């Protein structure tokens, strides 16, 4: 382990005069669930589609499982599963037929029924795909991506448009991928999704990565820990990069006065704080 599944450095892509990707770099280790998080239009899908071999790049170094995806080498495609943001399959094929058909293109496909079961579609195996619900169709997408038993799975906004229950179910499937030892590259504009699923997160803004790390450890540069307590019924709040000294002082003063610190809270910066600070800077200059 520790080997890299994906290496991207100084990736560049322009559409006409518009620079969609401006020197984007990140690495994904094997067995990791990696989340590319960012607002719509940040360049997430363009990046993923370059890694999937759908788009050429204008510059930069890219390796996916040791291959350059731009070459569209069949040996790479046999080891990768792709769930696109929005793509259908033959509406008049049943789930079972669709998965079986796609499996034939791979050298060592998973068992069809097992794959259908893995995504929770066993009860709908003989239903035609145009009769499936939105959530079920997304699971079929996943089954079609998994039937080749890929080492690496790309999931481009796998839960956009889902209701909360369907999202939770989709999350369970992603977690099961991790349990199978797959490497997963996930894009999302949902913070909670990145926080819930990803081992590492990179925040993308304007075609470049502005922060990267495990979702629990991403720290905003300005706002730090928030320490707050109640004084005379009103909440007093302090921001600090390191709460150790502040807490020592606050509690020491309170003890010296013989009081209790009512409602003391120490909050670590959430991914949301980081995300908002990093992605909204231009909209709210004062923030």
């Amino acid at each position, binding site marked *: 382990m520790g080997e890299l599944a994906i290496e991207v450095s100084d990736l560049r892509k322009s559409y006409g005069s518009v620079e969609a990707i401006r020197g984007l770099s990140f690495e994904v280790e094997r067995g990791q669930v990696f989340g590319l998080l960012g607002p719509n239009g940040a360049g997430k899908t363009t990046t993923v589609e370059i890694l999937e071999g*759908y788009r050429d790049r204008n510059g930069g170094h890219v390796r996916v499982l040791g291959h350059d995806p731009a070459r569209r080498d069949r040996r790479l495609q046999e080891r990768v599963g792709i769930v696109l943001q929005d*793509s*259908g399959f033959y509406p008049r094929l049943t789930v079972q037929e669709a998965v079986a058909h796609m499996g*034939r293109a791979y050298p060592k496909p998973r068992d069809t029924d097992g794959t259908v079961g893995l995504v929770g579609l066993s009860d709908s195996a003989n239903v035609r795909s145009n009769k499936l619900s939105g959530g079920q169709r997304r699971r079929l997408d996943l089954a079609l991506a998994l039937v*080749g038993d890929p080492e690496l799975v790309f999931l481009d906004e796998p839960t956009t448009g889902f209701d909360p229950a369907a999202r939770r179910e989709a999350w369970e499937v992603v977690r099961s991928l991790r349990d199978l030892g797959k490497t997963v590259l996930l894009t999302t504009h949902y913070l909670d999704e990145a926080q819930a699923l990803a081992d590492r997160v990179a925040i993308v803004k304007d075609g470049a990565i502005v922060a990267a790390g495990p979702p629990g450890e991403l720290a905003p540069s300005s706002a730090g820990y928030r320490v707050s307590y109640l004084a005379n019924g009103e909440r007093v709040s302090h921001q600090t990069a390191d709460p150790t000294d502040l807490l020592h002082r606050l509690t020491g003063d309170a003890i010296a006065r013989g009081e209790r610190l009512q409602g003391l809270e120490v909050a670590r910066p959430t991914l949301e704080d980081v995300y908002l600070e990093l992605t909204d800077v231009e909209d709210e200059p004062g923030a």
Partner: protein
Amino acid sequence: MSSVALAWQQFRLERKLFWRNPSAAFFSFVLPLALLLLFASVYAGNDDLLEVLIPGIAGLSVMATTFNSMAFNLTFLREQGILKRLRGTPMPTVSYLAGFLGSAVLNAFVQVMLVVTIGHLLYGVSWPQDWGALVVFTGVGVIAFGSLGIALSHAIPNFDSAAAYVNAIFLPVMFVSGVFYSSEKLPPVLEGAAGALPLKHVIDGLSGAIVTGAGVADNVEALAVVILWGAAGMLLAVRGFRWE
């Protein structure tokens, strides 16, 4: 699985999908046959007219099963993201296209045989005089109309408008190309238009094969026109190809 085996699997899938889509099967299979039965019942007993109609409907069938179905299907497959999905798998493009096109080719040949058989059994038109020419003109017609249909699909913005685009071409071509009557009876302008388009020449070739016994050697000019259209169609089909 080898590329050939995958092409076979894709072909079998396409056959299954074809029969599961009754409206598409209707338009490419049943409509030409319905037109055949309708006009043949009007022309019944008039051998001259029947000998125009049978090769005419056979040529129309070649166009409907390839040009129309390619333009419709590819627009649909592209709009649904099915082409893009397939592109992300190890399915070789050549296998996919061979299976996909093979199914349309089979439809065209089956349809031509149905028309010829109905013409013989119901209306007393003779069996084809030159089977080789029948196969050649059906074959080059399939290639020309198939690639032109693929090329047209690049220009169709979405599936909802596909019928309008296809019929805007299919219907006028059908009426000027001598499907139901000899195109020589048309005003010179329309006759000239028919002469520049491929369908009339496919029909001329099929007419030679079925009715007069004129073989490929006697219809070299018609063959050349169809091949030219096919070459232009292939160029446009390949150069403009979009997966999404």
